[in-house]
């Protein structure tokens, strides 16, 4: 018995060592390029491009950031994006979660063909032109609604939630609740949702990040400058600093002026645009703690 215990713990120790090594390896591989983005955003672009910047920033300057924040549109962009992201994600969840619940119920007869019809839309679509005509016909172009309602049910996310509901809600749970006279509405609201905080936060995150990064909607459907989200503004700033890469070829004059800072802006834009959404993650991380759901049932 003692021998077995020792053997097992030796195996587990080796296992823990392997895990630790893997984690350090993953950390280094992922973190270095991220760190590089940060130092590149404050270094001389020429030195970055010629491989002079490896560990510490060189030719330190905050030109990139002053360029980014010097653009007054950026604050309006931030405000719009925060609005579209919160409102949009709320609507997404409002439409997706109940539907996913319905589709997860084995007794729901229509679930299979509804699911099929939903999945079809992941593949077949009419293309940009008819979609544009439709959204224009609905009077949504140039309004904030175009960011909120069209395609507010993402079938991929719907499937993930449905799968989660199917596997993590024990079947007996609803049967027991139904005996007590609990309908689907109440069961969904007071049992299914609280038990599924993990998936709700994941899907909420998926949707929120989708809204946050979306520039295509604004590009195609919005012409009013006051409604432009952050990504469009940043894209403009980014492009205005990358123009020298093609400017010369189009017969104009390429300048050396912004050349030195082009990449600063490129890397700075990434930091400016993602920092806020990165900060969201730690808040939802707590819902992935091992066993947190089970605890909530018992509690």
């Amino acid at each position, binding site marked *: 018995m003692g021998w077995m215990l020792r053997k097992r713990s030796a195996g587990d120790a080796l296992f823990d060592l392997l895990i630790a090594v893997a984690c350090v390896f993953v950390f280094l591989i992922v973190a270095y390029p991220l760190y590089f983005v940060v130092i590149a955003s404050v270094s001389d*672009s*020429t030195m970055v*491009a*010629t491989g002079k910047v490896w560990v510490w920033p060189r030719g330190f300057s905050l030109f990139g950031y002053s360029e980014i924040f010097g653009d007054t549109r950026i604050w309006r962009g931030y405000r719009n994006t925060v609005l579209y992201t919160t409102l949009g994600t709320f609507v997404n969840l409002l439409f997706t979660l109940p539907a996913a619940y319905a589709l997860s119920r084995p007794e729901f007869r229509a679930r299979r063909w509804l699911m099929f019809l939903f999945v079809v839309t992941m593949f077949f679509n009419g293309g*940009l*032109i008819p979609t*544009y*005509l439709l959204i*224009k*016909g*609905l*009077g949504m172009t140039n309004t904030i609604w175009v960011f909120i309602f069209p395609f507010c049910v993402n079938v991929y996310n719907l499937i993930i939630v449905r799968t989660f509901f199917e596997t993590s809600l024990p079947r007996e749970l609803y049967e027991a609740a139904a005996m007590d006279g609990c309908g689907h509405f109440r069961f969904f609201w007071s049992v299914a949702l609280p038990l599924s905080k993990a998936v709700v936060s994941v899907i909420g995150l998926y949707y929120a990040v989708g809204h946050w990064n979306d520039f295509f909607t604004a*590009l*195609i459907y919005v*012409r009013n*400058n006051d409604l432009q989200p952050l990504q469009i503004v940043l*894209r*403009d700033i980014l*492009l*205005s*600093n*990358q*123009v*020298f*890469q*093609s*400017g*010369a*070829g*189009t*017969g*104009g*004059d*390429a*300048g*050396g*002026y*912004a*050349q030195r800072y*082009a*990449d600063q802006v490129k890397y700075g834009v990434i930091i400016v645009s993602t920092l806020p959404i990165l900060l969201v993650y730690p808040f939802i991380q707590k819902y992935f703690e091992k066993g947190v759901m089970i605890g909530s049932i018992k509690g």
Partner: protein
Amino acid sequence: MKRAWSLFLAILLAASALAACSGGKNDNGGDGSSGGSAEGDAGRRVKLTAIMIKHALTKPLSEMEWLQAAEERAGVDIEWEEVTADWDQKKGALLSAGDIPDLIIGPNAITDADIAMFPGLFQDLRDLIESHGPNVRRMFEEKPETRVLATQTDGSIYGLPKYQRYWPATATRQYINKEWLDRLGLEMPTTWDELYDVLVAFKEQDANGNGDPNDEIPMDFAPVGTGGFGFFHPTVLLGSTGITLTNGSGQGYFMEDGVVKNFFVDERYKRVVQFLAKCFAAGLINPEVFTQDYTKFQAVARGEGDIAKVGFTWGWEVTDRFGNTLAPQYVSMPPLKETADSDVQVSWDYSYEALNYGVNMVVMSAKSKNKEAAMRFINELYDPIVSMQVLFGSIGPNIKDNGDGTYEVLPPADPNMDPGTWKWTSTWADNGPMYISDDLQLTLGTDMQSVGAQTEPLMPALNAIDKENDVLPTMFIKFTPEDNSTMALNNTNLMNLAMAKFSQWITSGGIEKEWDGYVKEAERTGLPQNLEILQRYVDEYKRNR
């Protein structure tokens, strides 16, 4: 089952009917606002809408003094939508929904292909030019080629061109580091072999004198795209063999004695590639030449402090290419001969037309409610004094009015800024419609002057070009949509084959073995069909002149 369906459909129909109602209302509102005030209404300006495809650097249109003044003179008040990026994606939806503003301005923003594909969307401007466009008429009279640029095959005119006069006859200049030559006691090369020897010396010796004989890059050229060549590429060496490139000849097409050819299947191109492969094998070309991006290409040539790294390369202008510190080390170099005993008249890339003219700079919506007002505004842009400001910026901050009918482009307000950036920041610059009349007396900025000076060594070769028979006039030709798409598809195929082979032969050799098979393969891409189409159009163009 049936009833379930009908219930389902009823709900959806109700939903879409609601949607349709709100859509309709919105449309009416839109029409009302774009209609604006009646034309005769004295004192009130006509409201127009417009899209401007501007350069990403360009400041907001509302801050351009010349534009405000021009709108006022034309009696219009324009609501601008400023587009800097992704116009092609945006355009598809706008055009197919017929959802366009009164004016669209930008370099070839609406192409001939778009005009052909969306009939009825754009206004034929012929009558409006007659009645409200004296400045446009003047351009057509003084520069008849601008009328050719504007006219579609059926004689209609949808988009108006630009003429900007001052740009040089070629985009690509050839630079060599004179200081390196002097330090190593070398002469400026005049032939390929001499160039090779010079490059070898650059590589093997410490040409930049920093004590490290291995940090010199003897030759570098701009990143080569997968869709064909552009400017600043070694294809200008084809000039040594007597081939005249037109506007860079990106996809290989050139003209020789009135015959349209493609250099990708020409023996002379094979010799250029062989020469480059020889250089590459000897380590004379930047090993990253095919993988670096444009930023790096430019960054490398800026060297480290006052130590230059690149010996021989191509570019637009010397300070742009090497930065202000290193620029004095470099000189512009005349075209090379292929061999010392070659009696071929050397040539160069001729891109005068692409640099000085542009098509479809402005188009008008056929649905515009105020066509006369829109035309008045367009006409205003083609006024030579306004055009000058379209190109270089407002009189005052950007241009000095000497008061005697002469003008002068002012240096940038910020001394750290180069004149090119200053121009692009201040105004529409090359993206605007304009007519820079040949009588305009304007002193240019330092950048344009030095481009002119650096083109001098190339001028003998450029002047020797037979512009009738050796310059491909594609810019002045309108193709039918069918021919256009046939050629585009064939060219996509050809570029896939040819550009891959070009870089492969240079980096790993093998052209001698593969050339014949490659030429046969190129036939399969549809190249003969393209040559036949182009020849047909060129012949017709010449007949009509």
